[in-house]
């Protein structure tokens, strides 16, 4: 099923290796590195590589590569999803900035985790809450405890509830103040054409729940437009049959933060922001004029963390760009034929429309070989494009009255503007 795992950094150094079946020599890593060398950009290495004897399946997240070799028919999605789970757990344990050093620093812990996550080549406990109950994450408190009291990072007994009907929640959870909070987050993935038409638009929405409740609460959540979440991807705690029948989200939550459900809106949607770019080339000079602004009707809502990334060909000599809002920097990209101009506006001003103006110099006679695609990031708070809202929230089976909260935000996912 899942025969082995090599954790590498992008230079091919083996950080962790684990074999659940016949041992595969480390040499296979060279096969993989050969493939990587062939590609101009490392990210272009195909996730499944065929070699005469083995198939190399890998997942790349930043500088960390998880590589598994299989010699017989194995569903590749299965392998990659296990990789994803392992990465997710590592992010959770060691923070999102995981790299070779963090992995080396925590290799014993990682071995313990891998042993629980993949049991003899069969994935088993991949739920973060459960893992945490068995193996403690390396927090500062734990480190101190380990120094003075020699306590173990590995628990001596199985977590309770592990094999019950509700394995995702441990029993005996206790909080001083009970609170449950829902984040309604929507991410817009879209491509805006030169003529301002939106050619591709898709919204990925998710309801993320942060649950700090004692006991075994049973929660029922109703939303304003249940049809929006008809085909949602549900967390396993959601009672699927009731959801299908009544469009009501009823569940016993895991402890901590988790994604309750993810839904997709396909088709045109209302965008909170506009971007009007124009770059004209004459005699080796590019005249740039880009404006961005809010498109929201409710002017009280703010858009923050706006960032526009404009790629220029490497031949760019110099740039003279000014703006009436935010700051501009030119960034050298590590690979690819680009040089990028980053325009950052911490908060969109309400009294004016931010404009980026100026010129970019190229060698004389230069003609741009291709048109750039701008990518845009933003965060619109207290607003979402679908209009999905929480209508009702009941918590039963508990004696206390929890604090309840709902937040809404819309962010740019893959938001690009073609020029």
């Amino acid at each position, binding site marked *: *099923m899942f025969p082995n795992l090599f954790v590498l950094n992008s230079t091919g150094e*083996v*950080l962790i290796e684990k074999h*659940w079946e*016949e*041992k595969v020599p*480390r040499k296979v890593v060279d096969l993989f590195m050969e493939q990587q060398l062939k*590609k101009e*950009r490392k*990210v*272009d290495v195909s*996730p*499944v590589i*065929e070699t*005469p*004897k083995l*198939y190399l399946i890998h*997942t790349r997240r930043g500088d960390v590569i998880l590589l598994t070799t299989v*010699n017989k*028919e*194995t*569903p590749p*999605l*299965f392998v990659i999803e296990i990789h994803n789970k392992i990465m997710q757990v590592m992010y959770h344990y060691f923070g999102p900035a995981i790299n070779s050093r963090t992995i080396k620093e*925590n290799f*014993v812990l990682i071995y*313990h985790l891998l042993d629980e996550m993949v*049991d*003899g*080549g069969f994935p*088993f406990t*991949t739920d973060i809450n459960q893992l945490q109950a068995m193996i403690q994450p*390396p927090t500062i408190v*734990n480190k101190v405890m*380990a120094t003075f009291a020699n306590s173990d990072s*590995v628990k*001596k*007994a*199985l977590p309770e509830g*592990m*094999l019950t009907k509700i*394995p995702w929640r441990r029993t005996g959870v206790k909080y001083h103040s009970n609170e449950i909070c829902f984040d309604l987050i929507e991410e817009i993935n879209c491509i805006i*054409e030169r003529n301002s038409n939106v*050619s*591709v638009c*898709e919204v990925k929405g998710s309801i993320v729940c942060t649950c700090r409740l004692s006991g075994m609460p049973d929660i029922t959540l109703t939303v304003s437009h249940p049809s929006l979440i008809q*085909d*949602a*991807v*549900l*967390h*396993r705690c959601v009672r699927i049959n009731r959801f299908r029948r009544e469009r009501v989200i009823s569940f016993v939550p895991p402890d901590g933060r988790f994604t309750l459900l993810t839904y997709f809106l*396909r088709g045109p949607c209302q965008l909170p922001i506009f971007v009007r770019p124009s770059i004209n080339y004459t005699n080796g000079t590019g005249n740039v004029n880009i404006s961005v602004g809010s498109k929201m009707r409710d002017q009280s809502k703010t858009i923050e963390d706006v960032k526009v990334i404009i790629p220029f060909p490497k031949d760019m000599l110099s740039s003279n760009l000014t703006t009436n809002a935010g700051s501009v920097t030119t960034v050298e990209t590590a690979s*690819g034929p680009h040089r990028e101009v980053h325009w950052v506006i911490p908060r969109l001003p309400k009294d004016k429309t931010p404009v980026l103006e100026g010129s970019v110099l190229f060698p004389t*006679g230069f003609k741009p*070989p*291709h048109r750039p*695609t701008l990518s845009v990031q933003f965060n619109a708070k207290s607003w979402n494009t679908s209009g999905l809202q929480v209508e009702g929230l009941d918590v039963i089976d508990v004696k206390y009255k929890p604090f309840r909260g709902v937040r809404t935000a819309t962010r740019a996912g*893959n938001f*690009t503007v073609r020029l």
Partner: protein
Amino acid sequence: MSSSSKKSKRTKAKKKEKKGPGNDSRYFSSTKKGEIAELRRELNSMNEEAVKDAVKKVIASMTVGKDVSALFADVLKRMTTQDTELKKLVYLYIITYARSSPKVVLLSVNSFTKDAKHRSPLIRALVIRTIGCIRLPDVVDYFCPPLAEGLKDPDPYVRKTAAVCVAKLYDISPEAVEEHGFLKTLRSLISDHNAMVVANAVAALAEIAESTSKDVFKITPDMLNKLLAAMNECTEWGQVFILDCLAKYNPTAKQAETVVERVVPRLIHANSAVSMSAVKVIIKYLDVVENTSMRSYVMREKIPNPLITILSGDKPELQYIALRNINLILQKEGKLLDKHVRHFFCKYNDPLYVKLEKLEIMARVASNDNYDKILMELRAYGSEVDEAFVRRAIATIGRIAVKLDGAARKCMRVLLDFVKANPGGDGEGKERMVGYVAQNSVAVMADILRKYPNRFEKVVDIVCKFGVEGYDEERPLAAMIWILGEYATIIEDAPEYIQGCIDRFDDMEERCQLALLTSTVKLFLKRPDDGKNMVQGLLKKASGVVENPDIRDRAYVYWRMLATDAKVAQQVILSDKPKMADDTGKLDPSVLKTLMSNLATLASVYHKPPELFIAGGKESFEMKGHRKSDVKYDDSDSDEDEDEDEDEDEDEDEDEEEIKERKSKIKSSRKPNSEAQPAVVNILDGIMDEGPATNASPALPLVLDSTKGKGLEIRAGFSRKGGNIYLELGFTNRSNTLLDQFAIKLNKNFIGLVPESPKMSVSPISPGGTGSASHKMLIKPESANSQMAEGVIQIALKTKVGVLYFAANLGFDMLFSEDGQLAQTAYLQLWKSLPNQEADVKVPSLSVSNPEAIKSMLRSSNVFFVAIRQAPTGTHLYFSLKVKGLPVLVELTVNGTQMVGAAKSQDLSLARKSLDAIANKIR
């Protein structure tokens, strides 16, 4: 890190303060000298904490690839600890090094047994888990009792671990698993009240079923319900196991409906492995569902969503696999995703492999309703940065034009825009070249012009305005030259352009040169006055000066044609060309059918039938089939030898006497076999056809059943005759076509086995009839691929029913050469000179224990008898053989029905493999 910790190594207490115990990186640094000794000392410390640190260091060294196997005994001692973490660490170490010190593992069996009764289920499970990882056939017997306990453990955590362990054990020793009735216990676990146990039992059974031909896992209707119930409760991984298992079941219409209803909610799952497996189950089951409205509803409304959802995610790896599968599904359900075409538009930061797959799908979903949108998008790609992507996008436009008549005009317009936007520069050298976008567009335009002749004359005119000087890529230049010849009457300046090309003739690639020859002749035929001089000059040059035989050939052909009869030349050269169609990536219907039932697998990613993924998977099955058939091969083998010896004098070392003696021995050691007679007839024929193989065919292992073989059932194996290896094939024709004309091709394999000729002589096989073939093989070490699985030969057979793929097993004994006989003295000397390491094997019960029988049996596969010695331990038989040019010395000690074997050679692995092959033969 290194300098500070080098110091700290000596003073442990200090180090702890400095770096903090939460940081494991300190274990990676160590002084080189006396490292092992130091670790050993620490491992034997009285302080558990120090020991724990030491074990961590050992594991760290292990991780960076250092050999710390010398510490095995010391680490093992620590197994008795009461500390959970230390215990886990020790077990972790054992798993890695058990194989290099099997004897020490035996010493630890007691501790294992003790821990298997530990009060904590965590430890009990740990023991079981470790047992599954040790993979030593010798110690399996000791581990069976604790495993049997584990399968009945009151704690489900232990039971689910034990279920997996059975599959692991089966991999090493199927006999032991069957002996202890573990399979039965495993099947009973499917009725366990804990869903996780059920899921793991299912996964374990599925894995076992994959590696054996036995029917270990037959789903009953009763089991079906249990599986469906468990699916609702188990983890996402358990759901994958259960769904994959459901996908193997062939349901009735009623069952199919129930299952589809129950599986539909699994389609949308955060784990794409679950949703893809659900898609696979539903697509398969819908084929049997009789309710057509349900079928079309589920297909149209439910299937697209999960597929699109994976594409919407942010994991390019998953998207790639999904796209490959979508490509397959679309070949079956053509219109499934027509409405969702926008989801296949490439994102700016998609990796190249995702972008290319998306283009593939765009070409596939393009229809008269949506091609507008797709073309708009493709046009936008023309200004992207990534060259490989842009090239493919342009090619995709061409594919759409060829596929959709109505879209051709629009496609042409987009391509023309590309050409106009990238004209050649005015400067010198590289600057003058036409942009690659324009060049590739012209190449694609030529394809469209071929498909729709005489429709786009205006376009031709415009394109030619830019001239041909700026083209430096092979395909576009050839396309341009083709256009000049084909449309010579429309393009006014055609003669000048062609003359320009002729001037560059010497610098062109072959493809362009060939095109230029044709175009020049076309020009001459269409505009004789303009082309006369050119054609003469060029043909003269091409047939006289040029060295490339293909160019010369074509020049000569044109020359003769023009010289004899210009009319005929005109008819031939200016005739209508066959229409082209786009079938890129289109699969054979039967292949598609196989692949559809293998959605979500590697086969579906490579669009290759799963038979080609045999490496490893089916090995154990084939090994078993092997033993039986080997004996049979010998029949034909030895009989054939007679004629082979006459034909080819390869057996130089053997004199006639010995051969005869050997033959009589073989015959006497066997029951008289009348079936072997036809082989003699065959000798008279002198051709290798039906004779021996017909007899061999029932014994040959089945490699392809008639459903996979498109109606042709194939049995295959290898034999060795007169120093050559032959592929023995047995056919049963269950199709309704008369099969003649077979051609064979072998995939690159581990020894470089290639057929002597691709054509195979098989007498025609009528529907329902049987046939056979024996095809001579050669070994060409230069075409060997050492990466391929040992013993497996992948074969492609071209027949009237299509190309069939299968694999046959090449036993190692097939490689024993005929010149392996050693004299006793030479044997002794060699035995002494070889290093002490030897391969050994134990066979508890022999089928033949008579030394004479063993001798003759082995003689038939080129294992040569050297000497015999009687001793209190049993009868010692000494044999020699030669494989890959190296002599291998074998000693077999027979005592009653027990046999112990040992073998030596310069290459120990050769000795081991040879010995295994011998043991298999006489087991």
